[in-house]
């Protein structure tokens, strides 16, 4: 029996994993937060992370650095851990390295970045540059960005994992692209994470990717949870439905995120923002009850008819 199967079996038989395999932990303020299990290790992860595409790509400016540092402080205080980036995101990795305080934020961080180069030979060099920019000893998760030269890069990453230079290996796509290739990789490669686009409007991964992830014990990171802001901007034009109160949601961002993370196969969502008030709304999805299957259907129908 493989390690991840063993962990899944143990968690299931001891009743730790409840539908939809949510576990409660506590944040710095002592409030309960929802977490999920990384199937390949049993480690728990808060269900809301932070993306850094666009929001952390800014020019060198003390005022902006100070504001983003406060944003990250708030993220960690509210129970966040996973921050996702990529060398493709301009200065995002450099700015994360500047804005994540060495202590105590650093100790809570689950660092996730990507390798993004068509040259497999340059992969290791790019990873080292990223590591220096993040000021990390080693990354928690490294992912092949958008399946670019994935065969060679996966080899490098799996080798790094074996040598304990890395904890998890993953692969990413977005906007529903190359799902057939992604399925093949999930079925044949020993990866820990897959990152793909998932939200109440973009639900293609429910067909094949999420069932395969569940079957193979692969964690799922949902990117573009708000369709780069468009979805939540659109939803904000309408009043929140009454049932949102039952889920402790007082804003659309929280409700839309709870829809995503309540899918049993999804491990966490990574909304990106520059605003602390928006971050607080996003992080509020970390607490309170999750929608059940019937409520998820209600959310889908409601969004379809708005």
């Amino acid at each position, binding site marked *: 029996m493989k390690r991840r199967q063993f962990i899944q079996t143990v968690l299931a038989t001891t009743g730790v994993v409840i539908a939809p395999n949510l576990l409660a932990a506590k944040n710095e303020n002592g409030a309960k937060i929802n977490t999920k299990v990384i199937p390949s290790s049993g480690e728990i992860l808060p269900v809301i992370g932070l993306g850094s595409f666009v929001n952390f790509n800014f020019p060198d400016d003390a005022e902006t650095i100070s504001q983003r540092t406060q944003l990250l402080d708030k993220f960690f205080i509210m129970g966040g851990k996973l921050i996702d980036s990529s060398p493709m995101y301009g200065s995002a990795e450099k700015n994360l390295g500047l804005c994540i305080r060495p202590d105590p934020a650093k100790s809570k961080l689950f660092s996730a970045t990507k390798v993004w180069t068509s040259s497999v030979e340059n992969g290791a060099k790019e990873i080292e540059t990223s590591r220096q920019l993040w000021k990390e000893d080693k990354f928690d998760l490294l992912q092949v960005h958008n399946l670019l030269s994935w065969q060679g890069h996966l080899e490098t990453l799996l080798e790094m994992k074996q040598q304990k230079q890395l904890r998890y290996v993953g692969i990413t796509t977005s906007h529903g*692209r190359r799902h057939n290739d992604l399925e093949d990789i999930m079925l044949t490669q020993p990866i820990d994470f897959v990152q793909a686009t998932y939200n109440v409007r973009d639900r293609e991964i429910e067909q094949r990717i999420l069932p395969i992830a569940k079957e193979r014990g692969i964690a799922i990171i949902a990117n573009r949870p708000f369709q780069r802001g468009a979805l939540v901007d659109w939803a904000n034009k309408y009043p929140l439905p009454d049932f949102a109160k039952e889920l402790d949601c007082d804003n659309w961002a929280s409700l839309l995120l709870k829809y995503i993370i309540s899918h049993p196969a999804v491990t966490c969502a990574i909304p990106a923002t520059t605003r602390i008030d928006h971050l607080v709304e996003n992080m509020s999805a970390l607490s309170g009850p999750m929608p059940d299957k019937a409520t998820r259907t209600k959310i889908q129908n409601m969004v379809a008819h708005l």
Partner: protein
Amino acid sequence: MDFLQSFSLRDLLIFSPESYFKLFELSNKALWPLHIPFGLLAIIAIVVLYKRQHFATQFYLAWLGLVWGFVGYSYFGVFYSQISTYAHYVNYFFWAEALLLFLYAFVANHESIYSIKTPLGKWRIISGYSLIVYGVFIHPMVSLFIWNQSIIRLELFSIAPDPTAIATIGFTLLLPARGYLILVVIPSLWLLLSIMTYQAF
């Protein structure tokens, strides 16, 4: 092809409007008070251009070459490259335009291209001067007004790329020989890219 078509302009944009406009603020702060001599030089260039002296053409072509080299280095090399990996490549295009301007100023056949006797069409003169006046004086204000930015984020000719490209096209239209139209290619390409960026916002 389907894969490429799945990308929208917005998908290709990796920075926010705020970060983009911040670049103008940072470059204005870093370069102040160069704005004053740069502005005076622009006014002198317009005056000598109006006089249509032989040396005038040579003067403003060489000066425009310096402007393009400077904007390439400063705006793209130092500032824009902080939020876009591709800014370094745009920098090379700006240097290529600078080189072309110098070549036309100092190497090209002066007898044919500097002939002040060559009459310019009425619409070419109107278009040329209109673009210069718009690029140097009006565009910075329009940009501030449309995007609701503060004065510190003013996009100025010879510091920011859009007004520089617009006014350069105007200057080029006022050159006597048609061969000069090659100088319009890079400014036009940049403006196209800039329009696409604003559309993606």
